[in-house]
């Protein structure tokens, strides 16, 4: 077990600056209105730096830089762009521990996750898009002996990206890597809860990217996010967040006739069929871990398996074992490698989770474990910690229908296959799902019947590049983490060419 020093402490792998400006045109640019906002760490609740509070003027400045850089960047060869992405990945690899500590300090998540998941996945993501852009081909169709249709991929130009706070660097990478690979320039707005880890990343890799190709403007949604999302100067907006802002971004896009990609969350079912408990073996142990995945990243994951559906035959024993497994989850200082669950990302997030614990109990759901704010004492006393919480209830309760975005799972039972699918699909969302069974026919049929973009089968919470991620129903539009995302950042140019010297014969 290792305890990393906090940023800026003696022996720390990284330090944050006391103040961050915008990253525009390859340099640090102070905010037009000269205002900054405080950035607290959820680990202790204490402010550790201040950050530029951007407004429409800063967004315009960033768009100027992006439009200046986009034409040349869009004309670079795929090999050149892939080279830049690979260099970014290499630089991140060299600074993996520093980036992991930066991410943990700003977000509150345990460093074992940032070391083993967030940052390695981000590195691989750059490498993946460096690879697929080299392999992407246009097409040609021989329409007749003299006529050929050529299809070329062209970059959109300048795109806007609004990043969530739950995986600040990884979510930025999910959007940046395909956009850059496809030859676009980007204006990116991080979440105001986690504005600086991305800027720390830019401080490491900024010299590898032509000035103006990536621009980062911080600020509040209403002051900086809205001018970006509603700008007629962006060719596309990508957003990860919640449904009302997603709809608002679509409304702005409709005014400018621009496309959007949206990832808006879910209420993912995690289904455990009776045969999971047939033997107490490695697979049973893996399934219990799969249940406990609701606590990964403090539950602040769009695909949090926040509804556990457990078949009646093994319900009692499986739930007892799942409660025991959950009670073994170690909560503590996020910079301690032994810590499994850290702090919620913000105070309002903590308050929202507790408000759902209240309504869950008011609706008659039973708390099987947890259910309270966790007071960690000492320097962590001001941080935002919640006990991993298991509710038992039914699918019509609010805690089964709304995303709590905390370490809270709602458990219910089902009778048979049809009942499981009915409950699983009785939700407004369709982002993720989990299916656990030793019978691969059941697994296949369940996976196809669940209306969700990704069905983890005998697994959960894997996020490799080259497996498409995105939602059905209210969960959004588009598929990330796969080469198909390239086309969300590209135009199709058709050259329709006649090789015949003869007139067509109409006039």
């Amino acid at each position, binding site marked *: 077990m290792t305890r990393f020093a906090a940023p800026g402490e003696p022996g720390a792998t990284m330090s944050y600056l006391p103040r961050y400006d915008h990253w525009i045109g390859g340099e640090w640019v102070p905010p037009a209105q000269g205002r900054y906002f405080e950035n607290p760490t959820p680990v202790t609740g204490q402010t550790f730096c201040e950050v530029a509070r951007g407004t429409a003027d800063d967004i315009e400045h960033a768009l100027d830089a992006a439009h200046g850089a986009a034409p040349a960047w869009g004309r670079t060869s795929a090999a050149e762009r892939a080279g830049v992405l690979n260099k970014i990945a290499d630089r991140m690899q060299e600074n993996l521990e520093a980036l992991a500590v930066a991410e943990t300090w700003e977000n509150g998540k345990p460093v074992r996750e940032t070391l083993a998941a967030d940052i390695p996945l981000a590195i691989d993501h750059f490498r993946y898009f460096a690879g697929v852009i080299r392999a992407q081909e246009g097409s040609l169709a021989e329409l007749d002996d003299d006529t050929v249709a050529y299809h070329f991929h062209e970059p959109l130009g300048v795109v806007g990206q609004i990043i969530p706070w739950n995986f600040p660097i990884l979510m930025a990478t999910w959007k940046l890597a395909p956009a850059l690979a496809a030859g676009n320039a980007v204006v990116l707005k991080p979440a105001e809860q986690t504005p600086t880890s991305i800027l720390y990343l830019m401080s490491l890799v900024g010299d590898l990217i032509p000035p103006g190709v990536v621009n980062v403007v911080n600020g509040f949604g209403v002051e900086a996010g809205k001018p970006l999302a509603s700008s007629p100067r962006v060719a596309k907006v990508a957003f990860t967040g919640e449904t009302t802002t997603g709809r608002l971004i679509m409304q702005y896009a409709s005014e400018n006739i621009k496309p959007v990609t949206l990832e808006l969350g879910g209420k993912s079912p995690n289904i455990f069929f009776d045969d999971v408990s047939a033997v107490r073996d490695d697979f049973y142990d893996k399934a219990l871990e799969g249940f406990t995945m609701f606590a990964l990243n403090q539950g602040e994951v769009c695909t949090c398996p926040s509804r556990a559906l457990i078949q009646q035959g093994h319900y009692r024993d499986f739930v007892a074992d799942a409660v025991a497994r959950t009670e073994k989850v170690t909560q503590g200082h996020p910079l301690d490698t032994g810590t499994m669950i850290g702090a919620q990302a913000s105070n309002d997030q903590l*308050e929202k989770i507790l408000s759902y614990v209240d309504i869950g109990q008011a609706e008659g759901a039973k708390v099987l474990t947890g259910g309270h704010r966790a007071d960690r004492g000492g320097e962590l006393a001001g941080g935002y910690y919640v006990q991993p919480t298991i509710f038992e209830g039914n699918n019509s309760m609010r805690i089964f229908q709304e995303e709590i975005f905390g370490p809270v799972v709602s458990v219910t039972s089902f009778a048979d296959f049809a009942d499981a699918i009915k409950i699983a699909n009785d939700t407004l969302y369709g982002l993720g799902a989990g299916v656990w069974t030793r019978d691969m026919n059941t697994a296949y049929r369940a996976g196809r019947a669940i209306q969700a973009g990704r069905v983890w089968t005998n697994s959960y919470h894997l996020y490799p590049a080259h497996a498409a991620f995105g939602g059905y129903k209210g969960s959004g539009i588009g598929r990330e983490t796969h080469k198909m995302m390239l086309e969300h950042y590209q135009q199709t140019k058709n050259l329709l060419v006649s090789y015949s010297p003869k007139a067509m014969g109409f006039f």
Partner: protein
Amino acid sequence: MTTPEVSRVAVTPAAADLLRELYAAHGPMMFHQSGGCCDGSSPMCYVEGEFRTGASDVLLAALHIDGVEEPVTFWMSAAQYGRWRHTHLTVDVVPGRGGGFSLEAPEGVRFLIRSRLFTPEENAALNP
């Protein structure tokens, strides 16, 4: 009509204070209750008309706040309302950081929904 109208949405004194401040800066306002991840499951506060409601939305309340001339409308998508209709909502405010494009975020605070079940009497009046 003698049956008193049952309130679906209430506002805490702290939230009313904040709405008065926001009204002074922005004018008439509306809420739209969000769902989904990140800042979801919380109400978003906009300048009235900023968010275009339509046939897929339900107007739960027009909140009368002392010192705010125009009622503050409270909307939710109809699909989400179908899952929430058995609960009474109270708009509260807590210290916080950010939240979509909601107007209060730059003030270092965040609107938050607290919920309770409707009483049998309220349910009878709302669903006769």
